Structures are given as C-alpha cells and as structure tokens.
C-alpha cells in the first residue's frame, strides 16, 4: 500500500497551483496551452475519482447483457463484435440503457460541461 496524499489529492494540488498562481501571469498562446494543461489535470482527477465505480458498474451490465465474464476491455470488445455481426441491436433488452449509462459515465470524466451531456443529465436517466 502506497502512502498518502493520494494521486487524486496530488494531481488536484498541481492543477490548483497552475490555476491560481501561474495562469494570471501568462498571456497569449502560452496561456492557451496552460488552460489545456489545467483541463488535462482536471480530467485526470475526475477519472481517478470515478473510474473504479463506473468500470465496476459497466462490467456488471456487460456480464448480464452478454452472458460471459471478462475484463472491461474484453467485454467491450465482445459487445462491439456482437453489434457488428448483428447479433445484438437496439431491440436487444438492456442494450440502449447500457450504452446510455456507459456514455454518460464517460462524459462525466471527459467533458462534464458538454451541452448534450448536461441536457441528458437533466433527464435524470
């Protein structure tokens, strides 16, 4: 077991430093690059906080949907193959719900401010 602070706390401290202390000192193209860098650290922080839970839920749904076991990567590959072959489609019970849940979890990490995501989040689904 590694010591603390956790990677989440460490990453967040760097992002906060760049945002609060460095961003006001920089302008032009470098300021744009710095914003991208801060966005990356924020994304990493969100992923570190959410990935474990969302992956576990995704694996649970995929096992039920496919009737097989495997890692989250293996199960995604299997689902992709079954959709490609036509074996699974939107009439398959649970597919649409699974894809929506998985995609919402990805947006929560990648782009929580994306307008389509905020709209769908408002549906409470």
């Amino acid at each position, binding site marked *: 077991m590694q010591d603390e602070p956790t990677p989440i706390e460490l990453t967040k401290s760097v992002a906060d430093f760049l945002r609060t202390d460095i961003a006001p000192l920089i302008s032009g193209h470098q300021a744009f*690059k710095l914003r*991208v*860098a801060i*966005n*990356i650290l924020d*994304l990493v922080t969100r992923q570190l906080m959410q990935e474990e839970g969302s992956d576990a839920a995704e694996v649970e749904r995929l096992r039920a949907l496919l009737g097989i076991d495997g890692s989250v990567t293996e199960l*995604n*590959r299997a*689902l*992709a*193959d079954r*959709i*490609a072959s*036509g074996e699974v*489609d*939107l009439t398959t019970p649970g597919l*649409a719900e699974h*894809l*929506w849940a*998985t*995609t*919402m979890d*990805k*947006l929560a990490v*990648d*782009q929580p401010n*994306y*307008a*389509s*995501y905020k*709209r*769908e989040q408002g*549906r409470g*689904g």
Partner: protein
Amino acid sequence: MIEAELSRSVVRWYPGATGVTGAAKLSGGASQETWRFDIMHPNGPIGAILRRSPKGYGAAPTRAAGLAVEAQLMQLAFEAGVPSPRVMHVLTAEDDLGTGFIMQRIDGETIARKILRDDMFAAARPHLARQIGGVLAGLHRLPLDKLPELRGRGATQEISEFERDYRSLDWPKPVFELALRWLRDHDPGPSVETTLVHGDFRNGNLIIGPDGVRAVLDWELAHLGDPMEDLGWVCVNSWRFGEIDKPVGGFGTREELFAGYEAAGREVDPARVKFWEVMGTLRWGIMCGGMMQRFREGPDHSMERAMIGRRASETEIDLLRLLAPRGS
C-alpha cells in the same frame, strides 16, 4: 525570413506593389501553413493571406484535394458569386515559397464561439441558417465541367472508408458499431444528382461579419458527391458549440437552412440530410480517434491533440441522441 520571398513574389504579379510587411503565421502544422501579410502599395496596403505547404511537403494527405485545387475552387466560387476570397496568385517554383496560393484577406470572425456570443454578430445570427442554405445552393450549382479533377465519394463508399479507418484504430466502441450498422441499414445509395461537395462546410470555417457570411474557407476536403452531405455536416452537434437546439451551426433551424436552399432553386432531401448528419457525427468521432493515434505514435505529441482524443465521447452521446433518443 518569409517577407523577403513574399516581397520578391508580389512585385512580379501585383502592379505597383513595392513589397510586403507584417507577415505573421496564423496557423500551421507540419505540412500546411497560413500566413497573413500586407502588400505595400502607393495607394495603401492590401491585406493578403498565404496558404502553402512549405518546401519538401508537397504530398497531400489522401483525402485532401491539394492547395492548387483549393485555389481553383475558391476562384470559381468567387466568380460565381459564392462568398469566397479572390485568389490573387498561385505559387510557382520561381516564388521559392513551396506550393500554395495567395488570396485576398477578408475581414471578419471565424472563431465559432465568438460568432455565437458576441454582440457584434447579434443582428446577423438569426439570418445565418437561411443564408447558409443560399450559399450552399450556390456552391452546389458550380458547373461540373469547370471543376478541377476531384475524387468522387458516395454514401456507400464513405461508409466503407470510415469503417476501415475505425477498424484500423483497433479501438472497439459499441456506439460506433451501432452507428456503422445504422448507416449501412440506411444507406441511401447513389444520389440523384452529383455535385461539388465542400466537405468541411461548418461554423468555424466561415468568415462572418456583422452583415453575415463573408467567405467560405477550407476547401481542402472538396469532392464530388451527394450535395446533401454538406447540409448534414453543417448540422453536426459538435459544430453547434453548445447551442444544441439550433442545429445549423448553433445559428438556427433545419427548416431555415432548407428554406434558404430551396429559395435558391434547389431541392432538399431531409432523409439524406439526416443520414449525412449521423455519418458526420461518426466521422468526427473517428477523426478524434485518429488524433489520439497520432498523439501516441506521431511527431505531434501535443496536449491539444491528446485532448481531442478525449472528445470522441461527445460524438458517442450525440450518436445516441440521434439513434436511441430517450424520452423527452
């Protein structure tokens, strides 16, 4: 210094020009650059833009039409009254500037978010969807016999190409698979009419002024195909920049776009437009995957490129909204 070459070039073909000043690079990857500069002239400076592939970067990527073709298309569009910069000069070996062209610089804004938010464009915004319909109608009416040689791409071929691009990424994405199935099931086949297709007509590639559309830029993906492709692409959600209830670039409705197109004497096939919107959404998603791959393997190890890879999920939610919408 690029100003020396540009000065030697302009004095040869611009009557009265004495040189150039204020050259500044606006954007540039490894293979293509855009520069702004002013041509010095006794009657006052003339704003100009250079688009070029520097020496040693002659080969165009497979999908791109190439700068010489781009110059020809812009000039044809300009002559036909489609808002477009006038091409002033196509580079020759004598210019020693690589391959490309010099065009008139048009004042206005290309940054989509500014166009959608700034007060300066408030009066123009409500008219843009309809106006874009008219501009696309003009573009699709450019006479085929005058066009340079272009690749032809129909729906069926595009599905296969995108599937190949996607499979080459080895990036299994159930939502993309679903979209590919949907596209194959809804393939409209060859279009009744084949026209010039701009290929990247969207908010971000248009120069907009307070009076509306001033120029259509970035013709490098132009090809021959189904004119409805351009109407679908301009509606892809990623080009609405947050204004998701205004499908046409965040400006207005499909009905306004279609009305502008039809008022200019051309017909719309809404089912085909929807097909191309789904195709366009998947296309942008696969392009995000390509960015991720180039970030990993290629010379461009930039943070920006890495983050575009993480934009693939925005196309997944937009594909689900199109193909498996949840109740309202």
